[in-house]
């Protein structure tokens, strides 16, 4: 059984930069445990000689010509920014 603890939920939420309410923490503790229990089935198989698949096509490398191309104008780049300061995104202090 892979039941996860309240502390684990809070730890993962912090890693994921999610501020969860107390209700959400309780709900997710329950639901994530159910989901993890279902997905843990992957560990049943013997996979010792099986390579991983990260990508379904047999492409090795995709090269693009090393030629400069125009990028978006700055006004476009900032068009959806919540807070712009000249040519910077402004955020609260880190």
């Amino acid at each position, binding site marked *: 059984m892979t039941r996860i603890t309240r502390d684990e939920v809070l730890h993962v939420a912090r890693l994921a*930069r999610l501020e969860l309410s107390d209700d959400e923490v309780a709900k997710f503790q329950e639901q994530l445990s159910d989901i993890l229990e279902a997905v843990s089935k992957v560990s049943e198989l013997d996979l010792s000689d099986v390579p991983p698949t990260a990508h379904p096509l047999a492409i090795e490398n995709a090269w693009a010509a090393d030629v400069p191309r125009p990028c978006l104008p700055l006004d476009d780049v900032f068009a959806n920014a919540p807070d712009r300061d000249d040519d910077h995104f402004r955020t609260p202090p880190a």
Partner: protein
Amino acid sequence: MSGIDTLRLTAEEAKRLLDAKEISGAELFAAYAGRDDDLNAYLLRCDDPGGEGIPIAIKDVIGTKGIRTTAGSKILESYVPVYDATVIANAKRHGLRILGKTNTDEFAMGSSTENSAFGPSRNPWDPSRVPGGSGGGSAAAVSGGLAPWALGSDTGGSIKQPAALCGHVGLRPTYGTVSRYGVVAFASSLDQVGPVAKNVRDCAWLYSIISGRDENDSTTVDVPPVELPTAEDLKGVRIGVPKEMNHVAGVEPGVTEQVDRAIALAESLGAEIGECSLPLSVDYGMPCYYLVAPAEASSNLARYDGVRYGLRVDGADFREMAMRTRDAGFGDEPKRRIMIGTYALSSGYYDAYYATAQKVRTVIKREHDAVFEKFDLIVSPTSPSVAFEFGAKTADPVAMYLSDVFTIPSCLAGLPGLNVPVGLSEGLPVGLQLIGPQFSENALFRVGHALERAIGFDVVPERLR
């Protein structure tokens, strides 16, 4: 009015009427735009940009320059892309005109549109039921006479399953044949844009418009020329019936009955039918998918931090701002998947979950490869059930995830899949899923077209005839 039957008109027939000048481009657009959207198919409807091209609906995860693109999420509620996705640029180059942006489960995560931040869409056959998801908006639009065809996106079944539940044709293309540039990312090794249409020929035509190598998406490849299907027989086609996906517990009897009828019909058209087996793909597909997809989602959705675009909720410092923004902007399902994905990728759990899931993905791919040594394609129900009622699965995420149990394995293997409506069960559409090897779209179109002609399924919902 011009007497345009938006419920029935195919894109191909619309093109003929336009070319013959029997209708004008403006009349055609107005026929769709003037129809009341009582299905909540659209999140936004557009004005006619002019021209004589065929109108199209676009799932709201696909970026459209100057047209709000929300991905069904509050966090992107006011986001207006400054460039077109490649598929949109391709569509515009063919003159297609955008009717509007269609509803979706938030970030395309769901099987019913009940996860949309803007309310669910309704099934045109029975508005008390879901249209499927995540592309339920595009599905409702096409089956509800609000668009001749549409673009969807499919990560684990989001084109095929709604097409099954709403009774039309939908293709999830081979991974890499359609550009993802400008599409809101959910799980990048799985996401594919694809066509949603009233019949197989329209589906193939739209696929030919949107597919092709794109220098802005390094996972795209050259695509074999698309052939619009004409053949009405299936001579020489070898069709496999995986025993784990047909006649199994959990599939509604009415669904099995219609799928069996379609398989028998394929045989009468000349196809060779044989049983095959995918013993691990079905059992391990869902668990594998619900590790790989959330892991990739947790990474892709990290970009919504209140800095460059989207919602911002203020906080005393950067971390507080980001955490508050994400709590306020994401709904339950993205949060759940971000949490699962972050957990599966976190220190100490990576090998047990994510790395193991990627190996299972290889097992699933190999199992399909072996089946395709003997068969040209395989068939199954697309969805184990017909359209379900609102709320039927919202309380239990795992039950909802099982809606996609038959569509998921082939997605993990990067294979194309086509849904073709084959009949009704309890008055609701049943879809047949056709899966082929990578780049076998033309074979899927051929078989889908021949079956569609032989079955004569009426795509217009009974209550709207």
